[in-house]
């Protein structure tokens, strides 16, 4: 076969000129953010990892529909959508960042932006977007304090909240009526009610719990304490926090035994099922509990009004879930545009079964939520100002919270409370570990 050096040289020359031309056309990414960003000069593809916020048969389809809408309105930006399972979520993102294969944008764990930023400087600050929203009035659409939730110690906005997960206590009126017990109004009455329910029928428990240590998180806050002090240091062995831990333990195996003994091994879904079957009087879950209850149960299940502590305070807990960008992205402006769109159009995700409460007033006031059983009552009762963030007394969130959210320290503590272990010893172990997480971030 003969070579054709002239044509080969021509091809190489053409390719080189073409490459130079494309580079010249590209130019630097625009620095403005949000919806007024001009369309990109070259096609952009963003990797978007979204968590499984709703049922597998409805939520991913709703999310994809929203993405199709974004792409139709923003020619030149394509979104590669991946719906991620919650299994090993911490590891998924940690390893992605550690191996430089993080997506451009993702939703994720409640404290994930703090963790990935503090540990690896991986999160794209959204300050420009926030500034724009403050200028054009969009910021006022968020419930008070919500936008500042993801503000770190350096003043950077690490994420935009798109859903809040309020911890709500529910009760079964049929179980309480059968046991002849009034609906409690204080935490002391709550413990007595649980004990009375279990004494009246050994097969029915006061509380059904399982899976996550959310009750332990919440109880300290409800007693006016919390895991952290006002300086952001661990405070699990503070007097009020210990009081809260002892409160839970008093209902466990070492006390009245009115918490289901399987709480140490079952999942949250299994705990809800126990409650659904009428085998427990109280359960803690989100405002979106209704789809997991039978029609029969829904007739009896009510929202427990917030309970007062000894100081008369009524306090609860909420988590926030956000959407965040990553510093390694080549397209920060497009990422912010997408985040802005996702936040603005979140209604479609809730229609698709996403659990949680929108932090945006225009979305949450939508009449479609009025017909969701137990939803409005839950939010009204246990949302802010009753609901507090997990970092409660501390000035802001931190990477320690992300570690706590992923590892088993607090779950081990809760299991110790349920199974009658020494509370002071278990609290000390947790205190030392959590303080270690805090110190790592300093």
């Amino acid at each position, binding site marked *: 076969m003969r070579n054709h050096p002239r044509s080969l040289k021509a091809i190489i020359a053409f390719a080189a000129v073409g490459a130079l031309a494309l580079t010249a056309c590209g130019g630097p990414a625009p620095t403005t953010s949000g919806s007024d960003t001009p369309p990109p000069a070259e096609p952009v593809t963003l990797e978007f990892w979204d968590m499984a916020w709703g049922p597998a048969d409805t939520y991913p389809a709703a999310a994809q529909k929203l993405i199709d809408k974004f792409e139709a309105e923003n020619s030149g930006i394509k979104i590669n959508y991946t719906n991620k399972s919650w299994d090993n979520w911490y590891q998924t993102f940690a390893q992605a960042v550690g191996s430089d294969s993080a997506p451009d944008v993702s939703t994720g764990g409640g404290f994930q932006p703090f963790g990935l930023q503090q540990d690896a400087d991986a999160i794209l600050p959204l300050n420009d977007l926030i500034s724009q929203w403050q200028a054009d009035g969009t910021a006022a659409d968020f419930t008070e304090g919500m936008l500042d939730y993801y503000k770190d110690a350096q003043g950077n906005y690490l994420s935009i909240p798109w859903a809040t997960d309020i911890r709500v206590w529910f009760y079964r009126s049929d179980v309480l009526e059968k046991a002849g017990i009034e609906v409690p109004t204080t935490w002391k009455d709550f413990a007595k009610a649980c004990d009375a329910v279990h004494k009246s029928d050994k097969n029915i428990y006061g509380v059904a719990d399982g899976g996550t240590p959310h009750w332990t998180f919440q109880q300290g806050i409800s007693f006016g304490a919390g895991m952290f002090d006002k300086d952001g240091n661990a405070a699990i062995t503070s007097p009020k926090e210990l009081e809260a831990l002892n409160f839970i333990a008093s209902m466990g195996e070492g006390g009245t035994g009115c918490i289901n003994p399987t709480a140490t091994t079952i999942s949250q879904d299994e705990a809800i099922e126990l409650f659904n079957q009428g085998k427990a009087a109280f359960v803690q879950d989100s405002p979106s509990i209704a789809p997991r209850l039978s029609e029969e149960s829904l007739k009896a299940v009510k929202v427990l009004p917030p309970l007062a502590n000894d100081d008369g305070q009524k306090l609860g807990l909420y988590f926030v879930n956000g959407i965040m960008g990553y510093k390694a992205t080549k397209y920060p402006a497009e990422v912010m545009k997408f985040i802005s769109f996702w936040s603005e159009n979140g209604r479609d995700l809730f229609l698709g079964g996403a659990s949680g409460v929108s932090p945006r007033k225009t979305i949450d006031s939508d009449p479609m939520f009025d017909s969701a059983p137990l939803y409005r009552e839950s939010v009204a009762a246990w949302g802010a100002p009753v609901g507090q963030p997990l970092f409660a007394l501390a000035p802001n969130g931190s990477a320690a919270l992300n570690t706590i959210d992923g590892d088993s320290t607090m779950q081990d503590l809760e299991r110790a409370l349920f199974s009658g272990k020494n509370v002071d010893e278990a609290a000390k172990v947790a205190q030392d570990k959590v303080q*270690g997480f805090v110190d790592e971030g300093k």
Partner: protein
Amino acid sequence: MAKKDAKAISASDMQTRRDRWLSLNLALPSIFLLGVAQLYPLVQGILYSFQRGKTTNPSQAWVGFDKYGALFKDPDFWNAVRFSIIFAIGGVILSYLLGLGLALLLSQDIPMRTMLRVGFIVPWVIPPIVGMTAWRWMMQDENGAVNQMLSWFGVDTIFFFNDPTWTAVAAIVVKAWRSFPFMLVSLMATLQSLDPVLDEAAAIDGAGKWKTFWNVTFPQMLPMSSILWVLMTIWSVNDYETPYLLTNNSPNARNLMIFSFDEAIYRDLGTGSAAAVVTLIVLGILAYFMLKLQKKADELS
């Protein structure tokens, strides 16, 4: 004639060398890939154990043996060591005894022997998540099958996963359930390879069944048994699934694998890697001594 023979031998030698060279060349890509896939993570893990870092940001700084020092001071590490030892020893003994007993039984001519042989393999083939979930449901509360059966004998409900001792018992029983089929298959193959003449000779000399088994059959099974003990101990120490899935990551059932993983992923990559390296060294020493034991047993039998 000698010259012709020498030529023939030389040609044969050449052919052998060519065959060996071809075999090596054909195997080299696989050896290379396996080496990379196994050696690289091993070396990287060892290097991580001498560095400060997290999963999001590994290799931050060299800290010498600091991570090993921190590891040996960590009470959670020693709890994991203790549980690993109990879990491994208990699991090996129980699965071996079960496997041996069933192997001896199925070596006899009993009704439905083939069906039983197939049936006993089932625990081996059930996916771990299915098996462990089923066992957890059977054991975790008063309505589970295990507590129901215990109640027939007047035994009060045992909440297996709320107490460290009972959690260990549950984990060992389930481990034995998962592992005995492997013991059974291996020991049955061993029994079938033994010369029946020795047993017959012992019977003729008046030895009873137990004496025959203990003095004639079992010594012949020792070499294979030693290998099984070594393998099963290594597999038990490395078993992440059984304790994790059975107890939903209970602190009462955290072995060295779970400890290493949790530590490396969530807290400190260096300390987690150090734990994995220590485990590797211990298992390596164990394997060496057990192989020496096997050699001795070989000589004896």
